């Protein structure tokens, strides 16, 4: 087996899906929080807080706090406004002035008392905004008007402004005015060209500073009869310790996902172990040959969660696989023809079934997607799920061209570990690794104490698809000690 690293995909954290979705408890209130990224830094992100289960609030406040504990004092929180037409929904703008990781404190006061939660949010420049045609035309028209107007003023100044009142300009003055307007025109053209160069320089500088995940490579080597995937973080910022160290999320420093390009099948979810601070190894399942997209979810101690990307070409296959980690899993549905099925039931490896309760309405980009599922036995009884890495379910979804890849939990798009860093970090925690160590120590207890998944076999995920297109979903749950993966296809308008 040989591996060839190919071009890195140009992507963003939670690939191609910059908005944050969170569902959880703020004290006695269950809330769904959506933070729509500004796409630029500094910028205004829009936050929406929806109270679930019919709850009502007197006030909802939001406050983004930068992860860096050097912050002397936060500004006062903003009071979110009730969205007209729905008294359970509140919205506000978040002023994110510095790029990086923020904990957005959402506080609710109402008849049930007060409650608060923290939603990790990233402020990133992720897109380059085109100048829309109507605006461009309008500006060009106004610009031309101002240009000609300026020349006319220059001409009038030379031709008439120095004449005694009532006098008419003679031929010489008329020509002087024309010449002055011409000279002014040359200077103005120069100024416009200079302005254009300035604009281009700003645009190029902005493009250079667009967010890119840490540079990484994925490669496969043969060791005896088995194949080993090595993920390496090769970014100079990482190697020179300019960024915060990794912390485990759901018990693992790295969650690697491999999807064969085109067919979106097979799919693997692996958890490499660290060889050193930059290299991570995992035994590779017997994946068939092909070009694979490799996504690696990591969370840094700053609460910065991102998805590293690379591509990998596998040639041939091995049959021997001893998983590096018991949480590793892979699936090949055999549906290699890339046909998009709209079925809402997937048969799992143990014969149980996973049903997508999607309703009849079409999925629309940017609108809440009904990502609710039920796992039932062969005879239709609800399955009691077991925690899989401390949580009831993991849902991965990818657009067929790979431009969107998201790893969801019932809490949404957030990294659980990132949320914990904001809860665990003290104001004096300025030493690298302190919060990570505290989190690692606390995590085992937290995961074992995690609330058991509901006995109803139901799981749901707060999310809205970012773009229209064909998507494949992989939903992973655990039952009777087995990791079960259900695969669904859907089209989003």
């Amino acid at each position, binding site marked *: 087996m040989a591996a060839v690293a190919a071009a890195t995909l140009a992507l963003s954290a939670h690939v191609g899906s910059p908005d944050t979705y969170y569902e959880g408890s703020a004290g006695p209130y269950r809330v769904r929080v959506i933070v729509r990224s500004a796409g*630029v*830094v*500094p*910028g*205004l992100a829009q936050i929406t807080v929806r109270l679930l289960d019919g709850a009502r609030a007197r006030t909802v406040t939001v406050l*983004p*706090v*930068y992860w*860096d504990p*050097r*912050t*002397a*004092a*936060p*500004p*006062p929180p903003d009071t979110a406004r009730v969205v007209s037409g729905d008294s359970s929904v509140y919205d506000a703008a978040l*002023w994110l*002035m*510095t790029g990086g990781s923020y904990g957005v404190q959402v506080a609710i006061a109402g008849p049930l008392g007060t409650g608060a939660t923290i939603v990790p949010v990233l402020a990133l*420049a992720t897109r*380059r*905004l085109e*100048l829309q045609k109507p*605006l461009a035309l*309008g*500006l060009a028209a*106004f*610009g031309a*008007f*101002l240009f000609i*107007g*300026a020349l*006319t*003023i220059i001409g*009038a*100044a030379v*031709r*008439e*402004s*120095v*004449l*005694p*009142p*009532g006098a008419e300009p003679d031929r010489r003055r008329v020509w002087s005015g024309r010449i002055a307007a011409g000279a002014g025109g040359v200077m103005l053209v120069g100024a416009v060209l200079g*302005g254009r160069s*300035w*604009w281009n320089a*700003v*645009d190029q500088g*902005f493009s250079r500073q667009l967010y890119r995940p840490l540079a990484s490579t994925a490669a496969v080597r043969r060791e005896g009869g088995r194949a080993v995937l090595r993920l390496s973080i090769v970014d100079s910022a990482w190697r020179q310790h300019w960024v915060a160290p990794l912390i485990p999320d759901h018990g693992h420093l790295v969650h690697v996902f491999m999807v064969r390009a085109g067919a979106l099948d097979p799919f693997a979810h692996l958890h490499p172990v660290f060889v050193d601070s930059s290299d991570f190894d995992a035994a590779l399942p017997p994946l068939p040959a092909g070009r694979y997209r490799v996504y690696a979810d990591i969370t840094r101690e700053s609460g910065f969660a991102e998805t590293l990307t690379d591509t990998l070409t596998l040639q041939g296959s091995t049959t021997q696989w001893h998983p590096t980690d018991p949480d590793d899993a892979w699936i090949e549905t055999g549906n290699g023809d890339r046909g998009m099925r709209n079925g809402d039931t997937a048969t799992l490896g143990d014969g149980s079934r996973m049903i997508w309760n999607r309703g009849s309405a079409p999925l629309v980009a940017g609108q809440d997607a009904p990502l609710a599922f039920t796992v039932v036995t062969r005879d239709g009884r609800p399955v009691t799920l077991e925690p899989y890495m401390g949580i009831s379910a993991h849902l991965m979804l990818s657009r067929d061209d790979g431009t969107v890849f998201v790893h969801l939990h019932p809490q949404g798009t957030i990294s659980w570990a990132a949320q914990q860093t904001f809860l665990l970090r003290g104001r004096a925690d300025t030493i690298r690794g302190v919060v990570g160590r505290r989190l690692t120590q606390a995590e085992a207890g937290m995961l074992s104490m995690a609330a058991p998944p509901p006995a109803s076999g139901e799981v749901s995920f707060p999310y809205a698809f970012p773009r229209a297109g064909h998507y494949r979903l992989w939903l992973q749950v655990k039952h009777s000690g087995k990791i079960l993966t259900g695969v669904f296809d859907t089209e989003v308008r």
Partner: protein
Amino acid sequence: MADSAAALVPTPLERARADALSPPWHVWAVLVAATSAVVGVIWDISWHRTIGRDTFWTPAHMAIYASGIIAGVSCGWLVLRTTFAGEESDRATSVHFWGFRGPLGAWLCIWGALAMIVSAPFDNWWHNAYGLDVKVLSPPHVILALGFTGIELGAVLMVVALQNRAMGEGPGRAKPYSLLLAYGFGILLLNKAIMGFEQIGFPQNAHNGLYYEVCAAVFPFLLVAGARASTLRWPATTAAAVYLGISLIMLWVLPLFPATPKLAPVYRPLTHMVPPPFPLLLVVPALGMDLLMRRLGTGRDWLLAPLAGVTFLAILFVTQWFATEFLISPASETFLFGAQRWNYNSYPGGWEHRFWRIDIDPATPTKLAVAAVLAMVSTRVGLWFGNGLARVRR
């Protein structure tokens, strides 16, 4: 200059206009507009340094855009009235523009108002595309600045035309306009000081080469142009005093208003608006330039330019070099000097009491020589412009 301008023989129409001793309403309107722009910009900078976040509808922004509205509407009305319903004397003191008639300054004010309108959607797009920058200089901000600079220059042109027409009406007839002209140049000085806020705004910059190069390139032009066009005895000094006066009013008034930061990180728990830094003491070099211009008179501009340029730089250098040593010291931390009032997000440290960037941009003899050349060129161009202004009559 006064001699040459006085030689212009006033016509009956000029006399009719000059008889109206009080400046017409549109002159007051454009001067209010010009003031509103600079006050608004200083206010806006303070807003960003104190509160941090803003919207289009902040009072500071309203003051800036009020400038465009006041100037645009008043001059638009003036042009329509002059073209279609004005008296013959009004049309006689106007210039043609695409079939319409109005004073030259009014056209510049209208142009400036339109430029300000254009800058608003451009600036909005710019913030959406590249982020909520808090820079003074960005392409849309430059268009906005061109707009209100056009209004300020338009106000100067309207006043100077009235002054020049009133000069033949007897002693003292032009003086009210000359005072308003100095006021207009004071506003322009303030405008340029604001545009160079990042290079010359803070006393901590005053030991940099760039500080003197920017000052030398910008201020002599305005000081000599205003002086050459004026009938006052101390025109440059008066204009510099206007700049100093408005700056000090802003320095003393802004901190009276309560305000707290609304953006993180808050390193300084502010309770009131942060005032601008203490202004440059331009009155001192301006006084020197006035003396020199009075001694040399008109007709020797090629001699005056190098002398006045070097005089400006030498006096400015001595004044600012030592004055800023006091202004960055803890001794200046009083209400009077407004020093050491820093942004909510500026990390406390010893840098407040140090001169900045003196390791990479010290004020070396070479850089001062460059500044001297810039001052000479700026003075010469300013004299040309001032001579032109002295002839404006419409």
